[in-house]
């Protein structure tokens, strides 16, 4: 699942300098999502997280993700 989520994120953020998904509990449904991208430069945290939420909307809606923690960073 972490590989699957990373692939989705890499496709959504091809310009990202870092895309990392960690299975926080080993149970395959609690994830820490870390994305560093110049696209986040100048955006509020809310806007940054919205972009990540939007990218992961399909797997989240499938019910296979119980929890997503998100950490985003710009590169500026």
């Amino acid at each position, binding site marked *: 699942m972490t590989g699957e989520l990373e692939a989705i994120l890499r496709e959504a953020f091809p310009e990202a300098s870092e895309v990392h998904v960690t299975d926080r509990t080993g149970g395959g449904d609690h994830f820490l999502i870390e994305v560093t991208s110049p696209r986040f430069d100048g955006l509020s945290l809310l806007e940054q997280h919205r972009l990540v*939420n939007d990218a992961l909307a399909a797997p989240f809606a499938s019910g296979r993700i119980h929890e997503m923690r998100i950490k985003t960073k710009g590169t500026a």
Partner: protein
Amino acid sequence: MTDELLSDRIKSVIETEPVALFMKGTPQFVMCGNSERALQALRSAGAPVTAVDILPDPGIRQALSELSGWPTIPQVFIGGELVGGADIVQELAATGELAEKLEGSLGDDYREDAQERVVSVLVPA
């Protein structure tokens, strides 16, 4: 209760409460670690918190996410505007931006008499 009525009541909480926290459980009995993180972040900034437990009816979460466009719980609103979920509120608390946001929205003396309360969207206000 109709979805529309539920949605209207949620909207009313968002628009009228200075700080609204939609969470799993209540501040006295938190049912999820992420709701706990958001609550603690708000407490650390001295915020008055009006909490809504989303667990009693799955329709609450659905209507809330439709209104806010935000998929996960918890959700924090200040002055009627979505601030974000646990990660964002925690990060804003750590940098001091949360307190700034609260001052900007509620006034410099928002910490005075700040209380926590719980409201239900399943019964009339």
